[in-house]
């Protein structure tokens, strides 16, 4: 996918100097998210596809675990990308694209909660089967059990703590960015994250047979 994104938009038409600077590749081989978004703003659909492929799965998991309901998560997921598409003309690369994306996702999730109460329904997100990793059967069973406990505990977390943990793990955002997205201060975000991690760790470390 990276190789694909590198060839995007190297077209025959010369770009204006401002656009050349905006599109200038960084030291990494993959273009920046912001550069891809700017290219999409100028009509390069392949740039958007690259951006989408880069973030879609993590965003989908974030919303799936936040909503705890697949249909709701898919609705919000589509709404988020729809807003990103609509916002392409007004997009300015003043902040990380990931922060921008998850801020939109967080707000869409809040709207989704307000619109309907589906998120209060019983969670229908089941743990997926894990591929064979070549581990010993006992270890596989142990890891599978740990995963199940963690996902179960994650569903039981308060919404704010779950949100902060997912922003941390799926988006890889810093506490400052998480605080900015969730509309809290840094200490609150830090506290929520600490509690979330503590509960999850406790669930994983539960003695066998208690779950």
């Amino acid at each position: 996918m990276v190789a694909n994104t590198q060839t995007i938009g190297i077209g025959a038409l010369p770009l204006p100097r401002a656009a050349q600077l905006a599109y200038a590749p960084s030291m990494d081989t993959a273009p920046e998210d912001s550069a891809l978004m700017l290219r999409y703003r100028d009509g390069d659909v392949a740039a958007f596809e690259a951006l989408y492929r880069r973030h879609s799965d993590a965003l989908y998991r974030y919303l799936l675990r936040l909503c705890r309901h697949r249909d709701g998560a898919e609705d919000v997921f589509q709404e988020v990308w729809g807003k990103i598409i609509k916002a392409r003309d007004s997009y300015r690369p003043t902040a990380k694209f990931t922060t921008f994306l998850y801020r939109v996702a967080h707000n869409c999730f809040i709207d989704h909660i307000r619109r309907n109460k589906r998120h209060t329904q019983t969670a229908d997100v089941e743990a997926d089967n894990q591929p064979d990793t070549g581990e010993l059967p006992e270890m596989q069973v142990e890891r599978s059990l740990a995963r199940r406990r963690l996902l179960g505990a994650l569903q039981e977390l308060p919404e704010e703590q779950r949100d902060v943990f997912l922003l941390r793990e799926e988006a890889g955002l810093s506490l400052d960015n998480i605080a900015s997205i969730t509309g809290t201060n840094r200490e609150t975000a830090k506290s929520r994250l600490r509690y979330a991690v503590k509960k999850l760790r406790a669930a994983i470390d539960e003695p066998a047979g208690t779950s």
Partner: protein
Amino acid sequence: MTEERRSNENSVETDAVVTQIYHDSADQRAPETLNRAILDQAAKAARPRYSRLISWTRPMAWAATVMLSVAIVLQLTQVPVPESESFEDDTQAVDTAADTPLEQLEETVRPEAAPGRVSSDVSSEIPKIEALRSTAKQVAPYAAAEKGQRSDQSKAAVLEQEAATLGVASATFEATGCDESVTAAVETWLRCIAALEEAGLSDAASEQRELFTAAFPDFDTP
């Protein structure tokens, strides 16, 4: 220093075991149908701006064309005849004069002359009439060329009508000779003489010619 402290704080808030187990279980992927729908939406939204422009400029262009056409048609139908056509009217009048029989022209020039009366100053008027007629005939081709709109069919019809008129006149002259109504005008009298000669009535023709010469001694008969 602050950055370092923040980095340490961040690491305190994470748990490697939790992170690893979470990511082991994080294998859900967005459904491909959803991916396709979103990418299609993105592609549709990123189509060139001119397509959006065309969506409203095309009907507008059609509307403008229709409005202009209607305006032009109304202009053409309602505006009075422009002055450039006055020349055509003049040439038409001249053309009509060229086609008018000589006796009518005589009456135009000398309306007080009563038919059947041979005036003493007719001979003085004849050159004027002839000059007017020759001028009209000279101008007539130019007028016809200028008009350029008279069809061959209508010309043929006019010629046919003239020929029929002449034929009727010849038949009348043959039957009745040159009576007073014919001898009242120079042109008709000369036509009558010519018709008699053509009909082979040379005696009657010469008799009429003598009478004509007596009536118009100054007129050069053909």
